[in-house]
């Protein structure tokens, strides 16, 4: 069978920087190929080059060809703009990562889908809307007639991505390019969207080029895998071979760094008096600043405890109240009822002066390492600021403290005189941890602290946190939507759903034998990279006892992985 898309020797440049160099791969009709790689690998540049949207992003195709089509073939690399306009949205369609920013916020979603049909099918607006309604039905959007007239902000993340898919599939394309289409979604929604893409693909008979960094997603959806790193093609294999017998060391490292649910939790520390005790805590917000009447319970009657040197993993989907709980504990928002005992203090009784002094016991590490460090502040000041505020260090000694801190988190001593933009995302997160450590807190709350990082980097950062916990005896409240990561770092787990803790217990117990229906649903939605070789044949979506173990010494692999 001849290929639907043949990419040969593709090179893409942004100015003088080569984003992709000599990339070749094929996509057969009806086939699903996953392009896998970490950030900076050139996978998104490749997808934009196929659509010839790369020029708009400031890039250019320097070399290579991209033959596309079955009967008559065109070279996408050299096609003119008029030809490309007939291809885009019609024969090749694309779904992007962030459905909320990828949809026009001021245009009704029905019109956004109809627009494609008007453009490529020459339909009238009325006919196109009728067709859009069928497209909505097709992607299982409930109540499609009503949804047509809604705006993106009125839809949930999952529905928005369904709208994007309906839009992409409206003209029945031969090739769908899906660029991280589920990365911004919760696991349960992700699982629904993947199932949807798979079933529609069969029905329409289109090929799918799936861009992702998530090995679990690759295992769920792809037939073949192309691995990229720093713009270069690393290896290509069918998915079973890839997981059972990756040929290159980079692929093995990538697989090893991927957190896998069922790898087992760390050993719990010896029991001790709790550092943090939260009893029946409730926090609510006004539902709307304009109406001011009804209030939403963000945190509802939550009780948790956290011992010294212990990590409690807090999992749940976006909007479940995880971050509100964290903020309530730190009194960044004022809880309504309940009790908090932190480091021996009745936390909610503290006056604002006492609270300010007491806050050194509880520090926080945030999700976005780019936003959480002041770009104008040298590292030596940024990471010692908490210590200076609490007068634990004089301005003269601050630099020495900064040096000790950066060395503590695995960075060079001369880092302290640099500025945040000179560091990578992983390094910045290390600096954020150093800042939290500067006041020797009893509790660190890490709110999605590794969610924005590539898997191998995330792995290094969580390893660092575990190591620091062992040496400093600090307690960790580790908040994440990624259950596999939570499992790796948490002694105990609390599952949060709609503001309430629905289940809590030892990590292995909760994840191995979940008692609450929601926990089960959450777990079954997590995509899993398969076991090596024979076990791959039977995909074990609900088999909680099958624990995947991957070849190679993981820790060793990590040490050799990029620094």
């Amino acid at each position, binding site marked *: 069978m001849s290929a639907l898309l043949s990419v040969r020797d593709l090179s893409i440049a942004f100015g003088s920087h080569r984003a992709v160099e000599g990339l070749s791969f094929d996509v057969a009709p009806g086939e699903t190929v996953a392009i896998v790689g970490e950030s900076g690998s050139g996978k998104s540049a490749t997808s934009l080059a196929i659509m010839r*949207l790369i020029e708009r992003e400031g890039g250019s195709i320097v070399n290579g060809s991209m033959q596309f089509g079955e009967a008559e073939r065109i070279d996408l690399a050299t096609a003119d703009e008029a030809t490309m306009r007939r291809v885009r949205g019609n024969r090749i369609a694309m779904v992007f990562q*962030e459905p909320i*920013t*990828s949809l026009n*916020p*001021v245009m009704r979603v029905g019109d956004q889908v109809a627009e*494609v049909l008007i453009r490529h099918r020459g339909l009238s607006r009325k006919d196109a809307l009728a067709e859009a309604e069928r497209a909505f039905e097709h992607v299982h959007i409930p109540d499609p007639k009503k949804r047509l007239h809604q705006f993106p902000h009125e839809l949930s993340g999952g529905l928005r991505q369904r709208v*994007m898919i309906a839009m992409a599939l409206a003209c029945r394309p031969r090739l769908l390019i899906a660029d991280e289409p589920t990365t911004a979604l919760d696991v349960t929604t992700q699982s629904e969207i993947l199932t949807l893409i798979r079933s529609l693909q069969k029905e329409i008979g289109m090929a799918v080029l799936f861009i992702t960094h998530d090995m679990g997603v690759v295992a769920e959806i792809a037939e073949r895998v192309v691995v990229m790193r720093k713009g270069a093609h690393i290896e290509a294999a069918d998915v079973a071979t890839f997981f059972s017998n990756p040929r290159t060391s980079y692929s093995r490292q990538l697989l090893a760094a991927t957190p896998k649910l069922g790898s087992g939790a760390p050993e719990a520390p010896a029991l001790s008096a709790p550092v943090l005790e939260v009893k029946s805590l409730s926090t609510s917000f006004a539902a709307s600043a304009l*109406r001011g009447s009804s209030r939403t319970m963000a945190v509802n009657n939550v009780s948790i405890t956290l011992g010294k040197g212990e990590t409690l993993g807090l999992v749940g989907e976006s909007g479940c109240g995880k971050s509100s709980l964290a903020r309530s504990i730190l009194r960044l928002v004022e809880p309504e009822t309940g009790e908090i005992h932190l480091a021996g203090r009745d936390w909610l009784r503290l006056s604002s002066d006492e609270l300010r002094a007491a806050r050194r016991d509880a520090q926080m590490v945030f999700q976005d390492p780019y936003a959480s460090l002041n770009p104008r502040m040298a590292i030596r000041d940024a990471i010692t600021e908490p210590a200076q505020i609490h007068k634990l260090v004089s301005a003269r000694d601050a630099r020495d403290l900064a040096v000790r801190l950066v060395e503590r988190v695995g960075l060079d001593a001369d880092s302290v005189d640099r500025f945040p933009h000179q560091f990578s995302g992983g390094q910045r997160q290390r600096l954020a941890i150093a800042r939290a450590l500067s006041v020797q807190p009893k509790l660190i709350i890490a709110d999605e602290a590794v969610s924005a990082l590539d898997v191998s980097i995330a792995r290094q950062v969580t390893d660092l946190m575990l190591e620091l916990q062992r040496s400093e005896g600090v307690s960790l409240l580790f908040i994440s939507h990624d259950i596999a990561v939570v499992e790796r770092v948490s002694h105990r787990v609390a599952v949060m759903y709609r503001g309430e803790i629905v289940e809590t217990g030892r990590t292995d117990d909760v994840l191995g034998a979940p008692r609450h229906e929601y926990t089960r649903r959450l777990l079954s939605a997590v995509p899993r990279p398969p076991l090596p070789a024979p076990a791959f044949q039977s995909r074990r979506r609900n088999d909680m006892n099958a624990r995947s173990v991957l070849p190679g010494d993981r820790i060793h692999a990590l040490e050799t992985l990029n620094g």
Partner: protein
Amino acid sequence: MLSYIARAAARILLTFLVVITLAFAATRLSGNPIDYIAGQGLTQEDRALLIRYYGLDRSVAEQYLAFLKSFFDGEFGLSYVERRPVSVVVAERIWPSLQLLLSSVALTLALSIPLGVLAAIWRNSWVGSAIMSFAFLFYAVPNFVLATFMILVFAYWLNWLPVVGNGSWAHFIMPTIAMSGILIAGLTRFTRNAMLDVLGQDFMRTARAKGLTETEVIFRHGLRNASITILSVIGLQVAGLAAAGSVVVESIFSWPGIGELLVRSAILRDYPVLQFGVIAVSAAVLLINVLVDIAYGFADPRIRFGKA
């Protein structure tokens, strides 16, 4: 939603009360009007009589309360100068002012939005630089300088255009340009920035991925989104224009509008006209703001449905 409207209405009413109070206070600070309206050669008795007649002998607080009462009774008083009800004096000035305002706004929109869009699309070429250079130039020139310059060139030297009054369409040309010069420059720059923000958005990429033409992408998706931010600025600027621009420009061109009336009344200490004129202009500014808020809701569905 109802409480939102109620609060908005209360806010407008409060603003309006502040405006009325300020209008009252400002006129009391500027000297005794009797000396101006009656002129020289008034006997002391007549002067005292007039002061009592207009209630100027009472305390400021009493005057203020009397002023408020008559205002809400719909009695705005007589012009000291023209001896006619101020409502009539002001009302006949509204239409000429509105005509000038509308023609200025129309010219501003017709020029600055296309220019701003072009400047954004061609930001890296000479076209964009040329547009922005002109915008900067006009932004730096005050309207009275522009007006005087135009009068010098087109009326005095070339004798092409009339200067005084509003008798024909030709009378509109110079006042309209003088009124909208700064506005066009400001709005062109703002449109460019708003478009630049939008051009980098993800949904623009989605629109291109649909196979739309560049024109469709720019106007249907880009400008539609940029229009939300542009609208908010138009509202502010038009309000400012209605208040400040018209005073200067109408005076220069002897345009029979409210701005010219205000200046003249201020010079003549015609308190009732001045007060009512200021209040009328303020009411117009408030009205424009309300209209912009409503238009904003139409342009941005996220606001219409009460979410930010």
